[in-house]
């Protein structure tokens, strides 16, 4: 009985993994900026949100994503609501892809991810520059998008392994 209880708790914690990771990443960006690599930055929350919204949306509540966006805005100094808007749009793109896909493939996901990130970044760039009069370096954003796109495959594979781990534990229980 005790083993059964412990296993259930562990499964629950593993299921909450993506949410924990999202909150840790917005509070403490996983972008290796401290390495001072001139042209290196990527958007980890975009990858995480797109992947989990596409594969297991039940592990990542939209309300929690909204609050993660608010926290991200506060941490990096953007207008409140901007990151929530971009994160939710990423969710929307992922949900749309999930709805129209009969046979999922990593290549299709990857290319659609590029389209989603480009569309969402263009929207947020336009809103920040035109509506909020922010000065942003266009090149930095493009580089960020490129690295986010390339790192998607690597991180998606790690998430897939994690997802299989959860599924296997569920089956065993």
């Amino acid at each position, binding site marked *: 009985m005790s083993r059964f209880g412990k296993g259930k708790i562990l499964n629950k914690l593993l299921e909450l993994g993506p949410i924990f990771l999202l909150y840790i990443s917005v509070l403490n960006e996983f972008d290796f900026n401290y390495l001072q690599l001139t042209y290196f930055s990527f958007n980890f929350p975009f990858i995480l949100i797109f992947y989990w919204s596409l594969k297991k*949306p039940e592990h990542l509540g939209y309300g929690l994503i909204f609050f993660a966006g608010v926290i991200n805005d506060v941490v990096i100094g953007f207008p*409140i609501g901007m990151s929530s808007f971009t994160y939710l749009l990423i969710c929307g793109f992922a949900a749309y892809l999930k709805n129209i896909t009969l046979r999922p493939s990593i290549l299709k996901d990857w290319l659609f991810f590029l389209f989603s990130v480009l569309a969402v970044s263009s929207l947020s760039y336009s809103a920040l520059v035109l509506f909020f009069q922010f000065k942003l370096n266009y090149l930095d954003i493009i580089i960020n998008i490129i690295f986010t796109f390339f790192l998607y495959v690597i991180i998606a594979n790690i998430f897939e392994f994690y997802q299989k781990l959860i599924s296997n534990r569920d089956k065993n229980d």
Partner: protein
Amino acid sequence: MEAGRDDFVIAIRSAFIQRGNKQRFSLFFLLILSIILLVLGKFNFSVINYIKISVKELVYRSSFIVSVPENYLIDGYINLKDHFTYYDHYQDLKKENKELISNIENNNFVVSENIRLKKIIDDYIIVSDEIVAKVLIDKQSPFLRSIIVNKGSKDNIKLGMAVLDGEFLVGKVVEVNYTTSRVLLLSDLNSKIPVTIEPEGYQSILSGTGKNDGIIQYSKEEISLEEGSTVFTSGSGAIFKSGIPIGKILEKTKVSYFSDFSQLRFIKIISFEKEEN
């Protein structure tokens, strides 16, 4: 063709409007909520401002705690990097020290003379408040260069106060909460500081580039700046007092800051006022 469009509409409606499995809110509702927050925030709606301040207080503290493990890693990485350059640093510092010792003697005389002369023309400015603050969050984001410090309106921090790392200017306070504040670093694209370039004596504006260096802008004519010239605050616009060192001219209009913004741990927040006679 009709069917294709219908499929598209159904997929979009299902993605955005319908609530998914285990989802409490629909995407459409939350997207609208984000837009409302953005619009109300833009027009400084008071309720939004109170929410913002409360969320900021909470998030800054949480972010500091969550960042502790990463900060250990960063410190380890920096220590390791420094370890390999210790000897070169030592040689440079030895050389620099010799020059500094001789400069200090000259400097002491010039400073006392300067104070005396400024008092004569009633332009002697003193530091009225000096508050030492700890850097809570330093994301070194490629988009916005700012830091969060652990002093706020409770400690008499006000908008526009100068922020120094030792004697060097690093930025100014752009957001004040009850126990925390945001400092816009000089390296941010949105930072514009009136400066004097010595010994040429040019007046100009120093802008951030979003990188680790600054750029001299808005000078009236084509000015020829010498490599190694020093950039000080000019005191124009009454933002800061004049003569706070900022950096050196690297090449053409590029400025290398004296302070390393990635290494800020403790900073001084100060305001200036004229000495009362």
